[in-house]
């Protein structure tokens, strides 16, 4: 048990440290990839908590999405290489206060809420995925389909905003 808790703690601290690097660094690409590795540390934390499918999924999907965030950050933010050493932080006192308040609230939720009986053993990794699959097709089929609809709306909204309307002649 102690090794598992050690790794959960280690990867948690790594995720937080990478999160801090996201804001302390000047280069946009560095901050995007720092966020990527903080998500990877989060995925490793899931793995050490024996949630294999979620952990591997987190490690995989976050990599592609954070790199796409990196290219958009490089395209639309000033001085992506961080050469000008511009200090991007502002309203420091306000954000510090908000940070502390939310941390205290999170700890309070974690400690004081009654999470129900402690499960003796988690189902093994393969069984978890099967249960998730059955859950998707069974009880929460509605959530599954609304997820499909929300993904569709996100696609349409993104294209409507970002893509220039086609000039009629070149509808290739």
């Amino acid at each position, binding site marked *: 048990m102690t090794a598992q808790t050690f790794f959960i703690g280690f990867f948690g601290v790594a995720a937080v440290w990478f999160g801090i690097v996201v804001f302390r660094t000047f*280069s946009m*690409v*560095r901050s995007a*990839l720092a966020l*990527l590795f903080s998500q990877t540390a989060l995925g490793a934390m899931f793995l050490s908590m024996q949630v*294999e*499918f979620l952990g*591997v*999924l987190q*490690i*995989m999907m976050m*990599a*592609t999405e954070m*790199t*796409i965030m*990196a*290219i958009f950050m490089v395209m639309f933010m000033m001085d992506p*290489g961080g050469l000008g050493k511009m200090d991007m932080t502002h309203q420091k006192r306000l954000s510090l206060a908000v940070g502390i308040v939310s941390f205290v609230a999170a700890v309070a939720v974690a400690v004081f809420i009654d999470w129900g009986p402690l499960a003796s053993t988690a189902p*093994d*990794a*393969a069984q*978890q*995925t099967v249960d998730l699959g059955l859950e998707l097709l069974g009880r929460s089929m509605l959530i599954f389909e609304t997820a499909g609809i929300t993904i569709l709306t996100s696609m349409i909204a993104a294209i409507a905003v970002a893509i220039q309307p086609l000039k009629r002649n070149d509808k290739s």
Partner: protein
Amino acid sequence: MTTVFILISLVFGAYLVAVIEDWALTGRFRLTAPVFSALALLGRESVLPRKLDRVFFEVAPVLLLLSAVLAVAVVPLSPDLIITDLATGALFINAALVYVLVALLMAGWGPDGAYAMIGGWRFLGQLIAYAMLIVMPLTAVVMRAESMLTTEIVVSQAGLWNIVYQPVGFVLFFIAAMALAFLPPFDLPTSKGDLAGGVEAEYSGVRLAVFRLGRLVLIITLAAATVIFYLGGWQGPWLPPWAWSAIKILVVTAVMLLGGRMLPRIREAHLLSWCWIFGIPLALLNIFLVGVLVLVFP
């Protein structure tokens, strides 16, 4: 014990890939060439560009080798010859191989050179083209095997290999695997003609050796993945299982390395539009067909 054996066979496989690639490039079958070039690279200086991003420049080759080595952890060479038989094996291979993109982006952005940067962002465009064509055919393979365990996937192909069961999926997966390993005709990030070496142009000495070792291991890992997903892994009539795995992996590696030489480099605009306009509908069709097949012939 199996871990040590598999890692040694991985290094030997990477050596064979180097020999085959050298034979494809120069037409001479020299068994000692990779050893000499590795030693020579070790003996050369490793220059750091002037205004570089030191973290990116150092981490990129290491991350490339790491992602290739970790992806081998779930590859079964025979029923009990596998390092870690993860329950989400198929997904784990894909998760490990995504960090090839992160490594190449770091190698592109790190040295602050025009050729490297263009090569790096080009590979992100290439990922957007091939990523879906790796994931969707894998879903069809998992559907047939009813589990993501790579050993289960191989066992599920006992009667009929997946290359025969879902040929469309195999073709899409093979093309996407060659694009992932940036082999010609998909060598957009490290193209000699457009970018004078592109992403790997700024590396020299031992860092270049690690970068090239990472690429060789990546090729052998992708060949092994193609074998276990579509060519029935270790199954075969007379030879012992590990022999079949070795033969199939080498054949797929040879096809990957020699096939690419016969085509000009593809345009990035074409790669993106063909993968998205023809590739993804085909992949969805493949999933639908396999869905029907799995139900009709249990």
